[in-house]
């Protein structure tokens, strides 16, 4: 399943790239794309695991860019 999330206050392009890199390391995620310009994150993961995946996603994002919020 693929879901698109809007990102609020994603301020730096390099952080977006870092986020994408770290998120792609999460096993349960098939593919992540973080786009700085559109301020969007596209996550592709198994539907059943999506909720647990999202918790981890939030954690990773918070670590890299604490100001950035994922709008669910």
């Amino acid at each position: 399943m693929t879901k698109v999330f809007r990102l609020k206050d994603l301020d730096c392009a390099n952080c977006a790239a870092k986020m994408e890199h770290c998120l792609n390391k999460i096993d349960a995620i098939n593919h992540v794309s973080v786009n700085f310009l559109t301020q969007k994150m596209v996550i592709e993961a198994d539907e059943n695991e999506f909720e647990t995946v999202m918790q981890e996603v939030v954690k990773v994002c918070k670590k890299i860019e604490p100001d950035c919020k994922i709008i669910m």
Partner: protein
Amino acid sequence: MKKKLIRIIVAFGLFIIIFTVDKIVNLGNVFDGVDGLWLPLGLYLVVYLLVGYDVIWKAIRNLFRGQLLDENFLMVIATFGAFGLAIYRGLIGQNIDGFDEACAVLLFYQIGEWLQKYATGKSRNSIAHLIDLRPDYANLLVNNEITKVDPYEVALGALIIVNPGEKIPLDGVIVKGNSDLDTKSLTGESLPRSVKVNDEVLSGCVNLTTQITVRVTKVFYDSTASKILDLVENAASKKSKTENFITKFARYYTPIVITAAAILAILTGLIINDWGISLYRALNFLVVSCPCALVISVPLSFFVALGVASKNGILVKGSNYLEQLNRANIFVFDKTGTLTKGNFAITAIEPKVNQKEILALAAIAEQNSNHPIARAIVAAYQHKIPNGYSLTNVAGSGVIATKDDETIYCGNAHLLENHHIKFVPYPSVGTVVYVAHNQSYVGCLVIKDEIKTETREVLDYLNKIPAKTVMLTGDNEAVATDVATSLKLTIYRANLLPQDKLSAVEELFETKKINDTLCFVGDGTNDAPVLMRSDVGISMGGIGSDAAIEAADIILMHDDLRGLIDAKCLARRTMQIVKQNIVFSIMVKIGILVLSAVGLANMWLAIFGDVGVTLLTILNAFRVKKKLIFKSTKKRAI
């Protein structure tokens, strides 16, 4: 944004004042001796904290989160280091200076950040504006009463009213009213399209002249506008190789520069035995250690390109396709509907002296048939067709029309041979329809699928690149040869069944070189597998055809092949600018690093270089939008 701008401006003003005063009276000498350093330090520190407290706060926060390579942190280290060095120099009795530099680094860093944010925000808005198809409401008509509702709530078959100036919210069919539609946001075409009752209208078009009533045929999520929006919004998630290269580069760049800074500090310290200078040079490294210029300018260029493309009726599903289209050098075309109009037309009537009579007789015979050839004949005969004839269809041969003692034979050679009518076979690649009247041969009509007017222009362009051009067709050899030679195609494959097209493309894949990129252009009917198999699948006349939109990578919304030239030009221009940005910013960074290493660059140069290069690459990215001249669009306008 605004608060920060005010803060930056205030800090900048203060900085200028302190800086000028410092240069005139030298603040370090106001008080005698070692204590003199506290005055300039204090003043500059005020500016420093004013402009950069948020950076310092972020740096500290990131430090505790283990994000040491964060740019805020690096900037703070560099500037703290510079302050530290200046204090150290003051304390050991050297010239008191360097505070201005430390302060300026953070100030210009913030200015740069702000401008960068402003520019990207602007571009984001302008692109979003370009593809503003989303309808806000629908005027639902129930029992002669109009209510404004969310387009999402409108059911299939409901009636909606679209007033002049309003966007059509959902796909549907006109039941009342004739009007002109502005399809610009959908197709890039600037000429309005006139529509009448029973015409299909697409969401995203703007109604221009008169009120129309539309019966909804597609719910919101299936409507053209939402489909296109979806597609454009998701386009950015497919990243090009260049973008991936840049993010990878950025990941290694910062650690390498920082390691280099550490090594440099120690090495030069050991060699010239002045730890102050060696540390200063290393701090310079930190200032240029953020790869932001690259990380932002490359995706921005692609982003702008995707926006420009969709504005011009070209939907690109990802920047990777733009990259591949730029490299594409094998263009495979489907013949019917792509290179040719897909409808038949009379190209010759022989002998010429009898043209009118031949056409009139043929039209009588073919008036009731639904065959494309028959329709072409009837369409060409613009007068009223006399009736009263009884028409007999001879399967696979033609039609015989009789009225009283008059007989008209209209069909292929078999028909005339079977009725023992003498005629001269006409040599032609098209379909030849022979006409005989009362047992004597009158003449023949040659009917061919017409080549689109713009096809030649497109193929000339491709041949100039030069690219290999291939045509796939289900038509017979003769027709294929004719089209291929007249269009100067490199190769063609004839007699292909729809399923053979895929294997023909597979064959091309087998013979192509590694660096060749294959692009397939089709009209979206029957060629979904080929569109998907190709490196770049382009479908044209995409509006309304779901299969084409789904299978293709690039969709030309216009039913105009010249969109291909536009797309190719745009792809080339984008890639050029991307390359310029990459080369330019890497060169500047390396240049500053080298100059800093040998002691020729101070922090001023480092920060200007870093911020400057970011801004220049951003501006350069916008050239994708500005300088691109859509060749064919221009011609169309004339």
